[in-house]
């Protein structure tokens, strides 16, 4: 992990090359995170991957968390590893829930990190986050005809009626 000052140095260098792309930093429980502007998250990721002296070129995990009732609600997390310096940094982009059955959107990073393919599909499947430019954004773990975004915090546990032989008439 870069320590607190190391994180600020990285932020300063990104600020020089792409001003305004990083909104804030956080260093909590020994974990470094950069809060990126969701519209420019690819710039940040590309800089971390390609800038000389950085090489955060391994995306170990992409996942989404629902921060309901906070706004902006959805956080897309990119866990990057620099294998030379053996450091991890998290890039986080917060997305607002547009409401009215609209889905939040963010650029897909499959071009930069092919490993994100399945993980972005998983995020779409469970949170309904649309990754613009993803080659095949379909459901991956839930059935193709499933309706709803089950990992959202306002999706009830047990909301799926389970039909047994004796209970069929109760769920018609």
């Amino acid at each position, binding site marked *: 992990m870069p320590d607190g000052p190391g994180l600020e140095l990285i932020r300063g260098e990104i600020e020089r090359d792409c001003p305004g792309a990083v909104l804030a930093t956080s260093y909590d*429980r020994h974990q470094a995170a950069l809060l990126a502007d969701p519209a420019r998250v690819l710039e940040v990721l590309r800089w971390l991957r390609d800038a000389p002296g950085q090489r955060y070129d*391994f995306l170990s995990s992409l996942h989404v*968390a629902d921060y309901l009732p906070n706004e902006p609600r959805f956080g897309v997390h990119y*866990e990057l590893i620099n294998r030379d310096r*053996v450091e991890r940094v998290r890039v986080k982009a917060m997305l607002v829930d547009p409401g009215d059955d609209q889905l939040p959107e963010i650029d897909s990073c499959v071009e930069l990190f092919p490993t994100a393919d399945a993980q972005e599909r998983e995020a779409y499947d469970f949170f309904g986050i649309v990754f613009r430019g993803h080659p095949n954004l379909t459901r991956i773990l839930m059935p193709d005809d499933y309706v709803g975004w089950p*990992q959202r915090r306002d999706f009830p*546990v047990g909301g799926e009626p389970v039909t047994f032989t004796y209970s069929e008439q109760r769920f018609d």
Partner: protein
Amino acid sequence: MTDAAVSTDPLGLNEDRTKEVMTVNVGPHHPATHGVLRLVVDLEGEIVRELRPVIGYVHTGIEKSCEDKSYWKVIPFVERMDYVSFFFQMEAYCGAVERLIDLEIPPRAKYLRTLFLELNRIHSHLVWLGTTALDLGAISMLWYCFRERDKILDLFEMATGQRMHTRYFQVGGVIEDIPLGFERKCRAFAEEMPVRVGQYQDLLDRNEVFLSRTKGTGIVSRERLLELGVTGPLLRAAGEPWDLRKAFDYLVYPELDFKIPVGTVGDNYDRYRVRVAEMVESSKIVLQCLDALPEGPFIADDRKYVLPPRSELSTSMESLIHHFKLVTEGYRVEPGEVYYAIEGPRGELGCYVLADGSAKPARVHFRDPSFVNLQAFRDMALDGYVADMIASLGMLDPILGGVDR
């Protein structure tokens, strides 16, 4: 001469069909898919031209269910994701929660955890070796591997009471100390294991069928594997010495002496060699843990997070109150988020936990290595024979419970 010439081959029986592409469905219920994995394969003759894995058949919504349980009740849930490496799931989750609440675990617990993780790694690799060799036609390997696997399960049963899904790791340490006689049995096993691995190698390393089916098949370059996010033995077989046990500091791995086996070509044979060598290294780690096992408590002494000892409940009112609070509501965790990754038998096993201040996690996410590694399967199998595809799938070693969660 009329136009109605009689065809010499009215049914098209002599037509050359070797260039025709046929779509074949493999699975989801097929012993060679190591779970309920479905593969939609486009075949040209016997050559794989396109491959689409279809997953989700054992998706049980474990991550969602975890959001409805207090922190300590999540542990048995996450164990059941990747059902072959249950100790690793527990360690990833407990480690993440310990980092959230900033709880230091005592040295004896660290050693015990490392010990059981490495026994579990051997167990996982034995299941892999037995089933994969079975896929490749070496039926006897399954019996030999499961013989040793059973000894590991006996050890688990002796220490934890359960053979699988032991719920042994707790937030703060482990649930109870190892019993008398465990050390002797465990040491005997760990000393025997390298000999057994040598016997497996004697059976397979000069087996003509095994060699011709693994050597030179399923090659994916190291650069491509890194792009695809592949970790674990698959990546090391391609020559990249990346192992989180060495790279990051967790449990007692910095104090132990072990090697990281790496391959050269990155074919299926290298994957086999790397895993087999890892079993020997893991048994060395087990012995070192037994030698260096320090005396002292096996679980942290923080009554806000850790259950008080059973004996205190009848004498101490405070212990009874703490016990009651922990068992009914659980403990509350200050808002925050942690991603904690460890080296599982298949690669980087990461656990992300988001706390919102309540007694239940707001999100538990597992970065499962099988799920990510499965993306490399298309690269392994493309433009090879169907038989090599089955060999590559075995060497990929996906556990579908972990893929689907």
